[in-house]
């Protein structure tokens, strides 16, 4: 298939891996630990597992799967707020598909739907807007979710609703921002990451500039990356090259999509409709300053949180969850105490087991427990021998 197969070429993959192996030989390892590279975005995590990229890499490169899955990091209290809004009789609650199964403290949207709430899956916020036009007697709420990637489309939908003079359309805004979150990870104790595979779609909107602090202040290499398997391999090669040459800069591997200055109309729409929240709660990571956005006062009439009362109760993550440590690369998913036992994709306890883009769910689905245990045992044996 055009524009797809070119980016999945096994021959090119092989030569990239050879190049990575050559580079790795040149690196002077100060410690015994492997090089840890974090892919921030859940889309990358998905590709890495889907194509089995980890197994192709030399063992001294470890991929740490970051928190960039907006569905995963949604705290339970916010899901409870969704359910409470969805259960209002006048409301048609619209959401992207993969948010349906996220567990709240009592139920998910999928369960709320089964219990009688009018919850509908949409593919775009514009679908929700159409529903609002069609059902003037109902309130249509769109569950706005995602990083900067999905913010422009939500913002433009609100602007369109304003232009259409709609009064029965609102957002439940849970958009989150990338940069403060990367910063929080870099600032966290125990952090030992050596480089970042930066999110391509977020960068398409925000450009390269916001990532400079990673290389300048924290001295870590960072490469903006596309979502096909060859994109990811090429970025890993670029990162390892920087490490081998003791450089750290922002590089743009995804230049076919990402402009250095981002997308102006998208950024403009975002800044017209949204403003930063002082803090936002993340599942697994706790509260992070300025990591979420809310609607500006000018658009309060499109803000479901101001139109309707929501419980807004903070629900603590289960104590046994070690999502935070997995996110920071301190432990691997299968090393978590509840992985695969109390926490499975069917009954997720922690954020990372919720969506197929979450690191734990990806390990669980694409690499099952016995194999992981065998792998772990094998690695331990190798370590003992060497």
């Amino acid at each position, binding site marked *: 298939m055009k524009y797809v197969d070119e980016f999945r070429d096994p021959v090119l993959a092989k030569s990239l891996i050879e190049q990575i192996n050559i580079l790795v030989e040149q690196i002077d390892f100060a410690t015994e630990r492997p090089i840890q590279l974090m892919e921030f975005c859940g889309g990358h995590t998905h590709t890495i597992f889907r194509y089995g990229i980890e197994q192709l890499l030399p063992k001294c490169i470890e991929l740490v799967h970051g928190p960039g899955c907006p569905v995963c990091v949604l705290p339970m209290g916010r899901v409870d707020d969704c359910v409470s809004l969805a259960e209002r009789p006048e409301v048609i609650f619209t959401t992207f598909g993969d948010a349906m199964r996220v567990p709240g403290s009592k139920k998910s949207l999928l369960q709320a739907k089964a219990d009688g709430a009018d919850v509908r899956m949409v593919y775009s916020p514009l679908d929700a807007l159409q529903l609002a036009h069609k059902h003037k007697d109902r309130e249509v709420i769109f569950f706005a979710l995602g990083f900067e*990637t999905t913010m422009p489309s939500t913002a433009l939908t609100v602007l369109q609703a304003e232009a259409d003079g709609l009064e029965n359309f609102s957002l439940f805004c849970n958009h989150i921002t990338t940069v403060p979150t990367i910063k929080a990870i870099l600032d966290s104790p125990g952090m030992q990451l050596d480089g970042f595979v930066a999110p391509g779609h977020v960068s398409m909107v925000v450009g390269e500039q916001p990532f400079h602090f990673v290389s300048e202040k924290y001295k870590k290499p960072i490469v903006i990356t596309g979502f096909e398997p060859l994109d990811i391999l090429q970025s890993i090669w670029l990162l390892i090259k920087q490490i081998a040459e003791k450089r750290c800069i922002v590089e743009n591997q995804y230049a076919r999509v990402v402009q250095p200055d981002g997308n102006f109309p998208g950024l403009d729409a975002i800044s017209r409709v949204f403003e930063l929240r002082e803090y936002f709660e993340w599942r697994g990571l706790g509260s992070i300053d300025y990591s979420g956005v809310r609607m500006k006062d000018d658009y309060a009439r499109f803000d479901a949180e101001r139109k309707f009362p929501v419980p807004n109760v903070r629900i603590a993550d289960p104590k046994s969850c070690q999502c935070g440590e997995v996110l920071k690369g301190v432990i691997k998913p299968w090393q978590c105490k509840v992985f695969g036992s109390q926490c499975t994709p069917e009954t997720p306890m922690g954020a990372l087991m919720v969506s197929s883009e979450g690191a734990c769910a990806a390990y669980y689905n694409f690499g099952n427990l016995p194999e992981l245990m065998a792998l772990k045992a094998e690695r331990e044996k190798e370590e003992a021998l060497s």
Partner: protein
Amino acid sequence: MTASVPGMRKRSGVLRAETINMSHGGGGKAMRDLIEDVFIEAFDNDELSMLEDQARIELSTLTALGDRLALTTDSYVVDPIFFNGGDIGKLAVCGTVNDLAVGGAVPLYLTCGMIIEEGLSVADLRRIVASMKAAADAAGVKIVTGDTKVVDRGAADKVFINTAGVGVISQAHKTSAHNAKPGDVVLINGYVGDHGAAIVGARGDLAIENDIQSDCQPLNKLIQSLLQVCPNVHCMRDATRGGVASVLNEFALSSGVCFKLKETSIPIRTEVRGMCEILGLDPLYLANEGKVVVVLPKADAEAALAAMKGNEYGVNSAIIGEVTDAPTDTVILQTTFGGERIVDMLVGDQLPRIC
């Protein structure tokens, strides 16, 4: 068809209404008109025209074909009821025929239970029934008894159909999900995921124009010709809901073996791949309605493949993988990219991803 209608061998009923209403399920003249003018008129066979409370079948007809009776039932609630490449009627016949056929049975008779929501247009009902008849003819089965209920608006969605099927299995065939053995190969009779993709397209909630046709088709003739050249088929199942991935996981668990699939060998249409790429779906989990997954000894592979390709519903058949002994209970995909990954059971429905 629930009630016998004495002395009504003559097909005198004429259904004049344009939509189905509650009286068509009330047991009176309106119902008789519906049954005679729509169902008996279309299905047209001796067993049904007797209008008894049950179809009566000579045992000798059955025992001549084998030593075991195969009996199955399935309910069809698809939305929308008409889609590219088929409709709920065709699905209700093919689905049940295929459930019999994959057990090695020769399908013979079907029942037809319909639950109709009041307000369904009679034209749509006639279209569905005609489609059932065409599918039954293509499969060589008869629809010999049935039942009709009409329910209040909202109590069902347009029409639900249940079909039960009866077939006969000859002594030679002993396929089972438990029989896969290391060294076996896996075959499929063509492109995977067409039905699932057609249904996503037909629901129309996506602004993607496509022309993907459902693969809804009866497999009994293909399977019979396969069994003639390879009576020793180890496992055989039609890959409906949950797709090829789910069937192979069931085989892997039941047989305690590992299935290794080669992504490059799995036939997938470009349009289906394209839709999956956009929505973040995996074609291996998409539903099929005319695809059978076959596991058989490697020695029989080429002959089996030729037999399947010789049937109109198997032109694009392919060998897509093999069975190994470890890791047990697992399905592994060797990706186009050169890596390997586990193909697990789905937890629930596949849900499109955000971004």
